[in-house]
C-alpha cells in the first residue's frame, strides 16, 4: 500500500516503481540534502533542477505540498510571439520606452506559484517588472526589448512548468480598472473626512443645545472646514465634471444639484465661519458628497466589461493550421494561407477556412453555424464551411478563400458590430433626476426671491434658499437605484442566475418579447430513447458494442439507454465493423451479421420494416431479422410548457427560433404550447429577426445556448444563456442561468420585476420625503439638527425598504 510516493515537484502520488529516482541533491527544507528524490516524469525533474540552479528552492517550502500540474513539453515554437503582427496586437511601449504585455498564466494553483513566476521573471536580465494577479491569473510584464525578446519570457514561464498566452488588455478594461481605483481613492478621502467631521459635529450639536462660546464654535467650524475642503474639491470633483458635461449637452442631470448644493453650502458655511454668526453646514457638505459618491461607486462596480468577450472568441481560433506543401505536411500561420492551399484536418479539429474536400469523407458538426443538431456527412467534391468541426473525418480540403474572407471571420465581425449596436434603455432614475434637479433648483431660486422681496436681509434669504437644496438631499435618491439593484443581483446569485450588469435588471423588467432557441434551451439537446420495442431475444452487449463505437448522437442515445438499464454492460470485439454514412453501422461477430441504423439501411439489406412513428427510429437487425426498434426523441425539458404558459399569461409573446427543419420544430412547439415558431434559421437570420422586432418597438429577450445563437444574443436587449452553453455564448450573454433550468428563467424575470418595483418604491420614498420637507425648508423652519437627522432617516428608509424585499424573497 505504502508503495506510492509523491513526486518532488508536482506532489502527485504514483507507485515507486514508475518514478525516476535520484540520490542526494535535495535542497529545500522539505527535501533536505542526502534525501532521495522522486519524480513522476522528466518534466518535473527538469523544473526541480532548474529551480535549484536558479536559487529558487524556497518555492517548495511555500507550496507546502500543494499538488501542481506536471509540466507538459510539447509546446509549439514560441518564436511566433516575436512576429511583428503579434507585437502590434498585444505589446505596448510605455512612456519610459519599455515594452509591456499582458498575459494569462495557466497552471497557477497557489500563491507560491505566483511567487515563483514573479521571481523567475525578475531574475531574467532585461525584465523590469512582472506582476501577476493571483485572483485572475493575469500577468503584466514590462521588459526591455533590446535585451531580450518576448519569446524568451514565454520560454521561461514554460520552463518552470506553466504556460502563458496573451490577451488584449484593451483600453476598455484598463479604463475600467483605472476608474475603479480613482473611486477608491476618492471614497477613502471622503469617508475619512466625514467620519472626523461627525465627531466634531457632536460637539457642535451639544453646544447648540447647552450653550457654547463663539470662540469654540469658530474653532470647530474651522476644523470642519479644513476637513470638508478636500471632500468637496477632490472627492466631489466627479460631480462638477458630470454637471459640466451635462450642461454642455443641455441636460440637467443628478450631478448638478449635488454640485451646486454642496458648493453653495460650502460657501455659505465659509461666510458663517468668517463672520462668526449662525450655524455652519460643513457636515452636510461632506455627508452629501460621501453618500452620493458611494451610490455612484456601487453602480460602477456592477458594470459589465465587454472587453473580455472578444478575447475569448479569439482564443478559440487556433493560430496555425497544417497544410500540404510539396507532398509534405507543414504548419502554417492562418494569416499566411491563401486560396488554393490544401489544408489537412483530422477528426476533432475545427475547420478555419471555407473550401472543397479533395480527399476523405466523414461527419461534420455544423451546429455552430446552422444550429442543426444532426451531424452532416460530406465526401469528396462537397464544400465545407469554416467554423464547423470535423467529428470523425480525416480530410484534405482546398481553401477557396483566405481567412479574412472566411465565413468564420465574417461571423466574428458581425459579432463585433452586434455588440456595438446593442440597444440601451435609459434608466428610470436618470430620467427622473433630470426633472427633480430642475425643480429643486427652481424652488431654491423662488425661495430666495420670495424671502428677499418680502423684506428680509440678503443673508437670511440666502440661508433659507440653501436649506432648500440641502434638505432636498439627493442622498436617498442617489442610493435608491444602486441599493435596489444590489438586492436584485444577490437574489439572483443565490438562485444561480448571474446578471452581468445591474442595469439589465431594469431592462429585463420591461421586456415584451421572449425568443427561445429550441435545441438545448427548450429541449435537453440530446436524443433519448423514449420507447424500446423488442421482437426477439438477443445479447444486448452486442448492441452496446455496436453503438459505443459511433459518435452519432442517435447511437449515443441508444448507448446511454442501454447503460442506464444495466450499468455492468460491457462491449465485445467485432470481427469486422463498418460505419455506413447516413445509414448506420454494420458489424460481424462470430459469423453473425449485426445491423443498426435507420429505415433506409434496413431496406437496402432487404429487411422489411413497417414501423410507423414520428420520432427518430433506430433499427437493430441480427442476421437480417429485426430484433429491436428504439424510438428516440430530443426530449422537451420537464417544465417548459408550464413556464411558457406563465410568460404568456403576463402578456409576453413567446417565439421559438430554430435551425432545425419544420417537422422537428412543429413537434416541439406543439408540445410546449407555442404557436409562433420559425424554423431553418441561420445565425444571421436569427439576429435579423431580433432587429426586425426592434424596429417594431419591441423589447426582446433572447434565450439560447449555442454558438449559432450568439449574434442574436448580442443584438437582443437581453441575451440569456444556459450555463452549459458554449463558452462564447456565455461570454456574450447578459444573464447566465447556471442550473440550465427554465425555472431560473422565470425567476430571473420575477427578480427583475421585483427589483424594478423596488427601485420605484425607493424613488417614491425619497420623493415623498422631499414633498414634506421642502415646503418646511421654504418656509424657513429647518434648523441644522432637523436637516442632519432627516438626511440620515431618508437614506435609512431607502436601505431598510430594500432589505425588507430581500427578506421577503428569502423567506419564500
Amino acid at each position, binding site marked *: 500500500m505504502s508503495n506510492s510516493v509523491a513526486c518532488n515537484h508536482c506532489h502527485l502520488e504514483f507507485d515507486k516503481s514508475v518514478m525516476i529516482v535520484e540520490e542526494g541533491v535535495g535542497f529545500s527544507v522539505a527535501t533536505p540534502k542526502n534525501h532521495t528524490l522522486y519524480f513522476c516524469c522528466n518534466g518535473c525533474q527538469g523544473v526541480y533542477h532548474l529551480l535549484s540552479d536558479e536559487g529558487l528552492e*524556497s518555492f517548495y517550502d*511555500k507550496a507546502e505540498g500543494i499538488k501542481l500540474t506536471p509540466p507538459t513539453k510539447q509546446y509549439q515554437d514560441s518564436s511566433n510571439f516575436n512576429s511583428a503582427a503579434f507585437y502590434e496586437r498585444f505589446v505596448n511601449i510605455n512612456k*519610459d*520606452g*519599455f515594452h509591456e504585455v499582458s498575459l494569462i498564466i495557466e497552471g497557477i494553483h497557489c*500563491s507560491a506559484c*505566483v*511567487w515563483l513566476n514573479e*521571481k523567475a521573471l*525578475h531574475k531574467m536580465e*532585461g525584465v*523590469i*517588472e512582472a*506582476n501577476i*494577479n*493571483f*485572483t485572475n491569473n493575469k500577468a503584466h510584464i514590462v521588459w*526591455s526589448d*533590446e*535585451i531580450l525578446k518576448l519569446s524568451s519570457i514565454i520560454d521561461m514561464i514554460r520552463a518552470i512548468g506553466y504556460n502563458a498566452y496573451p490577451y488584449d488588455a484593451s483600453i476598455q478594461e484598463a479604463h475600467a480598472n483605472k476608474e475603479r*481605483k480613482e473611486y*477608491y*481613492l476618492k471614497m*477613502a*478621502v471622503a469617508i*475619512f473626512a466625514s467620519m*472626523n467631521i461627525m465627531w*466634531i459635529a457632536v460637539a457642535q450639536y451639544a453646544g447648540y443645545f447647552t450653550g457654547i462660546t463663539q*470662540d*469654540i464654535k469658530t*474653532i*470647530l467650524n474651522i*476644523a470642519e472646514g*479644513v*476637513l470638508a475642503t478636500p471632500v468637496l474639491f477632490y472627492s466631489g470633483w466627479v460631480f462638477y465634471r458630470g454637471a459640466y458635461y451635462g450642461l454642455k449637452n443641455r441636460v440637467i442631470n443628478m450631478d448638478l444639484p449635488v454640485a451646486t448644493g454642496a458648493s453653495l453650502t460650502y460657501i455659505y458655511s465659509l461666510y458663517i465661519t468668517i463672520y462668526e454668526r449662525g450655524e455652519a453646514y460643513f457636515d452636510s457638505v461632506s455627508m452629501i458628497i460621501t453618500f452620493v459618491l458611494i451610490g455612484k461607486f456601487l453602480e460602477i462596480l456592477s458594470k459589465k466589461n465587454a472587453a473580455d468577450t472578444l478575447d475569448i472568441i479569439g482564443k478559440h481560433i487556433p493560430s496555425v493550421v497544417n497544410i500540404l506543401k510539396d507532398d509534405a505536411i507543414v504548419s502554417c500561420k492562418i494569416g499566411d494561407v491563401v486560396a488554393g492551399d490544401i489544408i489537412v484536418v483530422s477528426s476533432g479539429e475545427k475547420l478555419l477556412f471555407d473550401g472543397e474536400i479533395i480527399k476523405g469523407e466523414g461527419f461534420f458538426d455544423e451546429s455552430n453555424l446552422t444550429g442543426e443538431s444532426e451531424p452532416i456527412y460530406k465526401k469528396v467534391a462537397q464544400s465545407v464551411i469554416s467554423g464547423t468541426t470535423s467529428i470523425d473525418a480525416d480530410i484534405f480540403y482546398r481553401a477557396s478563400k483566405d481567412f479574412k474572407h472566411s465565413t468564420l471571420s465574417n461571423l466574428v465581425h458581425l459579432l463585433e458590430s452586434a455588440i456595438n449596436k446593442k440597444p440601451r434603455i435609459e434608466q428610470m432614475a436618470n430620467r427622473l433626476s433630470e426633472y427633480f434637479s430642475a425643480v429643486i433648483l427652481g424652488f431654491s431660486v423662488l425661495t430666495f426671491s420670495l424671502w428677499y422681496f418680502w423684506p428680509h436681509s440678503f443673508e437670511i434669504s440666502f440661508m433659507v434658499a440653501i436649506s432648500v437644496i440641502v434638505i432636498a438631499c439627493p442622498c436617498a435618491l442617489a442610493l435608491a437605484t444602486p441599493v435596489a439593484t444590489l438586492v436584485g443581483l444577490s437574489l439572483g446569485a443565490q438562485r444561480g442566475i448571474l446578471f452581468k450588469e445591474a442595469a439589465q435588471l431594469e431592462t429585463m423588467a420591461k421586456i415584451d418579447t421572449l425568443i427561445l432557441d429550441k435545441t438545448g434551451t427548450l429541449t435537453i439537446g440530446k436524443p433519448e430513447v423514449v420507447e424500446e420495442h423488442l421482437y426477439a431475444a438477443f445479447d444486448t452487449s452486442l448492441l452496446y458494442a455496436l453503438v459505443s463505437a459511433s459518435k452519432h448522437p442517435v447511437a449515443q442515445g441508444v448507448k446511454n439507454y442501454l447503460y442506464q438499464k444495466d450499468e455492468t454492460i460491457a462491449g465485445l470485439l467485432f470481427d469486422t465493423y463498418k460505419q455506413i454514412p447516413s445509414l448506420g453501422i454494420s458489424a460481424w461477430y462470430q459469423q453473425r451479421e449485426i445491423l443498426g441504423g435507420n429505415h433506409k439501411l434496413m431496406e437496402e439489406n432487404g429487411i422489411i420494416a413497417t414501423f410507423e412513428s414520428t420520432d427518430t427510429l433506430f433499427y437493430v437487425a441480427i442476421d437480417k431479422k429485426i430484433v429491436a426498434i428504439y424510438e428516440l426523441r430530443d426530449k422537451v425539458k420537464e417544465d417548459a410548457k408550464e413556464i411558457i404558459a406563465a410568460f404568456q399569461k403576463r402578456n409576453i409573446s413567446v417565439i421559438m427560433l430554430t435551425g432545425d427543419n419544420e417537422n422537428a420544430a412543429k413537434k416541439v412547439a406543439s408540445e410546449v404550447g407555442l404557436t409562433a415558431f420559425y424554423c431553418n434559421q441561420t445565425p444571421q437570420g436569427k439576429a435579423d429577426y431580433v432587429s426586425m422586432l426592434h424596429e417594431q418597438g419591441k423589447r426582446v429577450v433572447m434565450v439560447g445556448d449555442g454558438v449559432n445563437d450568439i449574434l442574436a444574443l448580442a443584438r437582443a436587449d437581453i441575451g440569456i444563456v444556459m450555463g452549459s452553453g458554449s463558452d462564447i455564448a456565455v461570454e456574450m450573454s447578459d444573464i447566465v442561468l447556471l442550473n440550465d433550468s427554465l425555472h431560473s428563467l422565470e425567476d430571473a424575470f420575477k427578480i427583475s420585476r421585483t427589483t424594478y418595483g423596488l427601485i420605484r418604491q425607493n424613488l417614491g420614498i425619497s420623493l415623498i420625503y422631499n414633498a414634506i420637507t421642502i415646503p418646511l425648508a421654504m418656509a424657513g423652519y429647518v434648523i441644522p439638527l432637523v436637516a442632519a437627522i432627516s438626511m440620515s432617516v431618508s437614506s435609512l428608509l431607502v436601505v431598510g425598504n430594500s432589505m425588507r424585499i430581500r427578506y421577503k424573497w428569502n423567506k419564500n
Partner: protein
Amino acid sequence: MDNWVIAMMLGASIFLGAVALFAFLWAIKNGQFDDEEKFLNAAKYDGEDELNDALKQEQKKQKLKKQYRPE
C-alpha cells in the same frame, strides 16, 4: 487659553489621521490592494529576500532607463 488647547488637539489629531490617510492612498495608488489574495499572502512571505529583490529590481530599472535615455 482653553481655546488653544482645543485647537491644538483638533489640529494634532487631524494631522495624525491625515498621515495615515496619505499612507493608505499611496498604497492604493501603488497597486498594493489590486489583488486581495496577494496582499494577504505578502504578510506571510515578505522577508529580507523580498526586500532585496525589490531593491535590485528598482536598480535594474534605473540602470536600463539611463542606458536608453542618454539625453
